[in-house]
């Protein structure tokens, strides 16, 4: 008997004398058994679409004439896509937001002093130049001031809370602003037939999984603006996106926008959303009623800019309110 075993038996005897309930004599020569190895959690199949550089993605967009062509090419590259199960879905949990330094620009990589990285058609270049010139002289109207949703692809740029909920057959991409949820169907269904399509704020999105990447094609969108002081897009706009988690705290989205009336070539941008630290679990997405406070009510003035209708706290307010609340749209206001 080793000294160690003798000590253990003595301790056990003392324990029994003391009447301890859980008094178990040690086993002779007991060696700590190795803990059984935890089973490997199931993983999504490997992705087949390579992670391309920005330049390569710009070139990839140019190679394909339409968003649908690009989407089909990516699907071919992915071997038709992967079948995921609840156990193999990627973990996109958490509350995210778009980094503040990206400001309100559709292309987060827009260099300072540059109007846009989009290659616009001449007519839409003029519209953008006018919009920016108007802002410089204090004239600005945002179509979402009416409480309309931003709509996609502008949806990508809003700076509020976001949640991303992937499931095998449907993924919800949630923006807190006006309770805005994009639904992406990955159950094999096709788009709504062209004859039956209507313009929708967030369009009609179908997609497939390539390992842990979600590839999305979206059509049936409404016209809008990419953001304030950014270009317009038309009802012909379509997008292809590849969503993936690039590190535990970052979602990255490759976006190709096709819009022949406004874009002379596809516009590629990469969007990034950072996971917010929330140690006290205080961040919660609540219901967003855009019209709940009268003090936020604005109208478009005859010269095309924005003005409050009046404040509840100002007894002299109301003088700026229009005779008819619905102002005429500005000449360059997109249809929404």
């Amino acid at each position: 008997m080793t000294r160690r075993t003798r000590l253990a038996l003595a301790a056990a005897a003392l324990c029994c004398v003391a009447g301890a309930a859980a008094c178990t004599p040690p086993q002779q020569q007991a060696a700590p058994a190795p803990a059984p190895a935890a089973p490997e959690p199931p993983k999504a199949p490997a992705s087949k679409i390579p992670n391309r550089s920005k330049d390569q993605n710009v070139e990839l967009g140019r190679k394909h004439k339409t968003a649908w062509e690009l989407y089909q090419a990516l699907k071919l590259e992915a071997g038709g896509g992967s079948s995921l199960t609840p156990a193999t879905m990627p973990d996109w949990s958490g509350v995210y937001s778009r980094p503040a330094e990206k400001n309100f620009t559709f292309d987060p990589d827009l260099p300072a002093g540059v109007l846009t990285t989009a290659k616009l058609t001449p007519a839409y270049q003029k519209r953008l130049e006018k919009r920016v010139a108007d802002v410089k002289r204090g004239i600005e109207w945002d179509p979402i001031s009416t409480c309309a949703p931003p709509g996609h692809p502008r949806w990508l740029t809003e700076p509020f809370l976001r949640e991303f909920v992937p499931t095998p057959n449907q993924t919800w991409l949630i923006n807190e602003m006006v309770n805005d949820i994009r639904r992406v169907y990955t159950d094999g269904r096709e788009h709504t037939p062209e004859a039956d399509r209507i313009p929708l704020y967030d369009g009609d999105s179908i997609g497939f999984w390539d390992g842990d990447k979600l590839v999305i094609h979206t059509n049936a969108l409404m016209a809008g603006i990419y953001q304030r002081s950014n270009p317009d897009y038309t009802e012909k706009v379509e997008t292809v996106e590849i969503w993936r988690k690039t590190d535990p705290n970052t979602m990255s989205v490759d976006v190709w926008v096709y819009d022949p009336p406004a874009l002379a070539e596809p516009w590629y941008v990469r969007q990034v959303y950072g996971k917010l630290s929330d140690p006290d679990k205080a961040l919660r997405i609540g219901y967003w009623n855009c019209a709940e406070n009268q003090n936020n009510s604005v109208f478009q003035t005859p010269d095309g800019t924005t003005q409050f209708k009046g404040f509840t706290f100002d007894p002299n307010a109301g003088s700026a309110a229009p005779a008819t609340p619905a102002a005429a749209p500005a000449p360059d206001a997109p249809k929404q």
Partner: protein
Amino acid sequence: MTRRLAALFTLGLVALGAVPGLAHHSAAMFDEKKTVTVEGVVKEFQLTNPHSWLLVDVKDKSGKVVTWGFEAEGPSTLRRAGIKPSDFTPGTKLKITGNPMKDGRPAAIWVTAVRADGREFNPRAGFAVK
């Protein structure tokens, strides 16, 4: 009233850095190159979407009270900036700075507020991803 208010409060020409504007409507009705600072007490903190309003009662030299409204982002963005409803209960004394309305009405974009206990609150910090 516009002239009287302008005389009552300090107006400073301060160029602001690149920060997000107001997310639901343009800030064209505010003069973002100017700031106004007032001292008063909280009348009401309206934590609403898409924008919150901090209403502050400000007394002039004659004793007349003018209510100012300071506009900021909605409740979740304020929460990200560390601003909670309990931070500005009615009666809380503070000094608050904002970008004033161009037309002289008593409203501004809330830039920063300092309570009597010295704690400072900057709503725009709520856009940071951290």
